[in-house]
């Protein structure tokens, strides 16, 4: 009779097998969960990049009063516990909350994918901005002077610096994606893990684990890891040949 360790190993192996079976069977419920996870985290990442990359570039390239305070806030944001972000967004969006009571169409309702996007965006944008800022600050400061001397406008100079810092910028996006595709606290709180509506891979893993379906939870975990790996490989590919140097 195998011991506890043997049982766990068996569970993991079973999980791998079931993950492959679920993928091969093209299970519609699984497909829906995976699609929603990618949609929510992908949209949140897009907004994070749109906010975070320019903010990181601004903080990395310019000096202004209050910059240190903004950087300190950003560093704090990089360590935000997702569950606290979830709680904050929950309170803001709830019907009696400051945003929820406005009833504006732009403000997402609780327990919707849009609310989950908002929460994940708050988690990932400080990471994107922080890593972008560090990457931009790592570029030779004389490069700016050089491209300006070649006739670059301010915008062209910023783009040139960002292009030189592209390895770091891609890392910032990967870090942002990693922080949200794997988080459970915020999406559980503002999404509610509602079947066919707001169930994501991470919240489904929590649910299946609590029900004792370890092999299914493990299978979902394997799919989540696979997705994360595939996304990162795609980003590195998009980054071009920089890593070949």
């Amino acid at each position, binding site marked *: 009779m195998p011991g506890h360790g043997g049982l766990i190993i068996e569970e993991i192996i079973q999980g791998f097998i079931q993950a492959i079976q679920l993928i091969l069977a093209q299970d519609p419920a699984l497909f829906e969960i995976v699609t929603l996870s990618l949609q929510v985290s992908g949209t949140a990442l897009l907004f994070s990049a749109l906010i975070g990359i320019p903010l990181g570039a601004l903080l990395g390239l310019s000096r202004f009063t209050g910059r240190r305070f903004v950087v300190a806030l950003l560093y704090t944001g990089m360590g935000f516990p997702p569950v606290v972000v979830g709680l904050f967004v929950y309170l803001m969006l709830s019907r009696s909350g400051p945003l929820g009571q406005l009833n504006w169409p732009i403000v997402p309702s609780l327990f919707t994918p849009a609310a989950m996007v908002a929460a994940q965006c708050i988690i990932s944008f400080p990471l994107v901005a922080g890593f972008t800022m560090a990457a931009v600050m790592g570029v030779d400061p004389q*490069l700016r*002077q050089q491209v300006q*001397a070649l006739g670059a406008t301010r915008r062209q100079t910023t783009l040139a610096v960002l292009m030189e810092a592209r390895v770091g910028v891609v890392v910032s996006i990967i870090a942002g994606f990693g922080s949200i595709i794997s988080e459970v606290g915020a999406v559980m709180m503002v999404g509610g893990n509602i079947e066919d509506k707001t169930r994501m891979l991470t919240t489904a893993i929590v649910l299946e684990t609590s029900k004792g379906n370890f092999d299914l939870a493990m299978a979902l975990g394997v799919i989540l890891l696979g997705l994360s790996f595939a996304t990162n490989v795609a980003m590195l590919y998009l980054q071009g040949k920089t890593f070949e*140097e």
Partner: protein
Amino acid sequence: MANSEFVYQLQSVNKAYNGRCVLHVDSLDIQRGEVFALVGPSGAGKSTLLRLLNFLEPPTSGTVRFLDVEFIPNSSMPLELRRRVTTVFQRPILLNRSVRDNVSYGLRLRGRRNAARLVESTLEQVGLKELASQRARTLSGGEAQRVALARAMVLKPDVLLLDEPTVNLDPYNVGLIEEIVRALNQEQDTTLVLVTHNVFQARRLAQRVALLLEGQIIEVADVVTFFESPHDPRTRAFIRGEMVY
């Protein structure tokens, strides 16, 4: 270009950093089509003066007149005029791209994307045609400086500012670069402003020479007068290498 005999006319120009004046030029004219050398020891303010001439920084007080336009404190030059001047810096800072991409960079900034022939002929001029596809950061110091020179030459500027362009290079590359810039001046009538602490190089290349000491112009004269019968004892001492810092 305007019909004026001068490309630059400086009047009472001061440049200060944190309240400390590092450059004070009462009057200085640079003629169109000449090779003008600025010599002086390290820290004399030569590079600061070049930054003003490239409009990278405005003067703290006074006027830098370029053609008929005045560059005054708290101002910026119109982009079109800024793009008629470019600098080759002492340390060539190349973009992390191919040699060809580096050379065509300034053209792309100007929206000229179909200038392959011009780029290739410029690469040929500096003897780097065979290395066009190589990554710029894998080049030797001399090759990198030639890329920086080609990147500036391809823009066909009215004025080319050279900030110690051959320092730390081997005699072969020094000779090559001097030959290229001499040809540029003679064949294309490009005005050259050469900053160097190498009096021999100033003598080989320039038609007029100025000595800059502690932020002030001590003497300006044609190359023969400057080297054979200078008026100021400090110029004589500098030429003889007697100045100890």
